[in-house]
């Protein structure tokens, strides 16, 4: 156990701190991950790339900083930006999901064309994976494309396309091989959101905000070379990026920050003459959550340390999404309870605390428990991949599926 980073890293940390002190004031305020980056944000992004504080390991020929991967330096950057309360680089789905995918599976031309403007915030992407009928069972997606005159012609509907309104481009899973088995009939296409036939409708959630959209495709025509990977390989292309998405969730710094905000809230909220934190019952819950946040923090350090040694992370990593989403939700729940009736104020009410963030988080975090693999799917994964427990026995094919898939004799995956 050695929690020191060593001289080289201490120097690097110092460098980051100095950068933040010198330039932090130029950071854009209140960065909204779902929105199109502001001019300030684009400038800030350029500055961060220049210093290697974002897009750090992306080759410079594609617009990145071109450093060797160094998990500790990445971690130091994240820590120092979080500590200073200064937003790091852009973290949209184009950067977190499309760029790694292109780097891994794109053609040279695709890399040169798309990565740099994406990193710079010039091109905003949205993700077209889920459909109303294909959530946990993503591979059941029905949005289809036929080939006609050198073009894919796309029809169908996507959901949860968070930045669709602002996006220039979409990376999208569509069914192109209609005779192929479920997972083998999908292709990964990228195309402009200006293409005729695309309609985006805001999707309001229980929070009262439209954090997402539904996106409809009617005879949308896309050149056949705007595909990543081969036809029918889209499922495997997407799975590479799904991995990247999963690692975005469950940031231990975020949990610590939320817990600290809860401690502050409970010190400030008053019930008669007492502070909320003076309630032994609420305080006991607070201490229990704090212990769990600490456990997740050290678990994160353990994963980090394992990655340094080339260890993929195992169980410690597999449980992060399930546990941290739940924990974040519980933190919000305690905040609401500590506020009593104040806790239900919302929609900009007088006396509302933190602009309704606790309630909004309480609901949004329930969305996160569901999204990106429900808690039930997470438990399946932990049991099957982590603990090596048997998969659900395969079922006889239901008639509806048999038409297309059964002849192929492929194994059907079950939840």
């Amino acid at each position, binding site marked *: 156990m050695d929690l020191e980073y060593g001289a080289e890293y201490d120097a690097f940390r110092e460098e980051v701190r100095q950068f933040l002190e010198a330039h932090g004031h130029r950071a854009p305020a209140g960065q909204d991950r779902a929105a199109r980056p502001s001019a300030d944000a684009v400038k800030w992004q350029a500055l961060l790339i220049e210093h290697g504080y974002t897009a750090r390991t992306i080759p410079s020929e594609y617009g990145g900083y071109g450093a060797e991967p160094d998990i500790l330096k990445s971690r130091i950057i994240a820590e120092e930006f979080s500590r200073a309360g200064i937003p790091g680089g852009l973290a949209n789905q184009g950067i977190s999901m499309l760029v790694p995918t292109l780097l891994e599976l794109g053609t040279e031309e695709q890399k040169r064309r798309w990565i740099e403007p994406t990193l710079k915030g010039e091109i905003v992407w949205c993700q077209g994976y*889920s459909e*109303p*009928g*294909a*959530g*946990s*069972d993503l591979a*059941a997606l029905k949005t289809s494309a036929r080939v006609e005159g050198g073009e894919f012609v796309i029809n169908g509907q996507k*959901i*949860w396309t968070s930045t669709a309104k602002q996006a220039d481009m979409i990376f999208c899973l569509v069914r192109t091989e209609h005779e192929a088995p479920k997972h083998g009939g999908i292709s990964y296409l990228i195309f402009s959101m200006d293409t005729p036939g695309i309609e985006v409708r805001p*999707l*309001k*959630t*229980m929070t*009262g905000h439209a954090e*997402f959209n539904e996106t409809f495709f009617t005879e949308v025509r896309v050149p056949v070379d705007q595909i990543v990977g081969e036809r029918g390989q889209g499922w495997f292309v997407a799975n590479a990026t799904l991995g990247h998405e999963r690692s975005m969730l469950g940031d231990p710094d975020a949990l610590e920050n939320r817990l600290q905000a809860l401690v502050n809230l409970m010190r400030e*909220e*008053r*019930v*008669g003459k007492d502070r909320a934190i003076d*309630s032994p*019952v*609420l305080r006991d819950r607070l201490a229990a959550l704090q212990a769990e946040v600490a456990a997740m923090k050290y678990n994160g350090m353990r994963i980090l340390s394992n990655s340094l040694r080339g260890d993929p992370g195992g169980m410690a990593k597999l449980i992060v999404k399930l546990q941290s989403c739940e924990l974040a939700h519980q933190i919000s*729940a305690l905040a*609401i*309870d500590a*506020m*009593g*009736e*104040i*806790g*239900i*104020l*919302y*929609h*900009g*009410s*007088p*006396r509302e605390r933190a602009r309704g963030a606790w*309630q909004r988080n309480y*609901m949004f975090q*329930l*969305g996160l*428990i*569901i*999204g990106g693999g*429900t*808690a*039930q799917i997470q*438990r399946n994964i932990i049991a099957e991949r982590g603990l090596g427990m048997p998969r659900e026995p395969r*079922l006889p*094919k*239901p008639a*509806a*599926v048999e038409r297309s898939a059964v002849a192929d004799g492929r194994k*059907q*995956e*079950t*939840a």
Partner: protein
Amino acid sequence: MHFGLSEDQRMLRDSVARSLSDNCPLDHVRECAEGEPVFSDKTMSALGELGLPGMMVPEEHGGLGMSLLDAAVVAEQLGYAAAPVPFLATNVLAALALTHAGSREQQADWLPRIARGEPRISVAIAETVEARDGAVVAAHGGGLSGTSLFALDFRGADAFLVADGAGRLHLVPTDAAGLETVALTTIDRTRSVGEVHLQGVAAEPLMADGGVAAARLRCAGRIILAADSLGAGEAMIEKAIDYAGQREQFGRVIGSFQAVKHMCAEMAARHEPCRALVWYAAHAFDAAPDEARLAACHAKSHTGEVHRFVARTSTEVHGGMGFTDLLGLHYWFKRIGFDRQVLGGPEAVRAEAATLQGWTRAA
């Protein structure tokens, strides 16, 4: 011996349910709740036809003189429909307060009108549970000063029934000099709460009773909120089962997955005993006043916990759709959230239950 609803109560339940299903379907709830929220006149007038405004008003004042269990039966249906109507404050709490602690003049003035469904009285008794943000109301020389938060069924009130720091109740007309009000908004757009600021307002006190009336009101309010939660929880469980029976993933309805089945079973197993608990608390309010406060505490705190679990679990069963606005499931989620927090969250209510039983060491 009969533990359960009487024939009349089941008829009442069914007729309220029918009326709400006709007049207050989800689309209508949504209409009322979106934009600047309003109460549903249509629903109120339909419920008015059933005589509900006067259900708690004694017969001699033109009401039906019904019991709190009858009111709980109605409240459960209102929760089940997430109906945006101001039933609790005027028709239950104010009617009870005036009946039991009103002067003859106050009774004659207000009760017949309540029975006719005319006035709306908002009830401001939150500070008898917990004083948030330093809110407190004091009575001095016939005048009331201070602040009360979370006045129930606030919007469109003609008068406020305000508890002072000693638990005595006062009627304050909306146009009283020195009264200012501020609307608050909560997650639940089918309800309405607000705050009341008083500066030497000349109010009409109800009969002095050492706070008993306010304690009784709090008790009744908690039972009605628990009943509302019961109905909302019932609706969420039904919706989860329906959805799970239709939604297909991996080639089968998700309701055939054991994980989903067990989520639904667990909701039902925790929810079902709440029904008898709420019924008993409401019954005890009239029939066994000695036990009523403790029973109300149990009903309020236990439904608060159970239905938070139900609200969350039903949403999870609905997957992404439950999280969207599309199915409107969140109206019930938020209704349950409101019921849990108002007039004391579970911890506060359990602390009161402990004190009632002498579990707390005398200071």
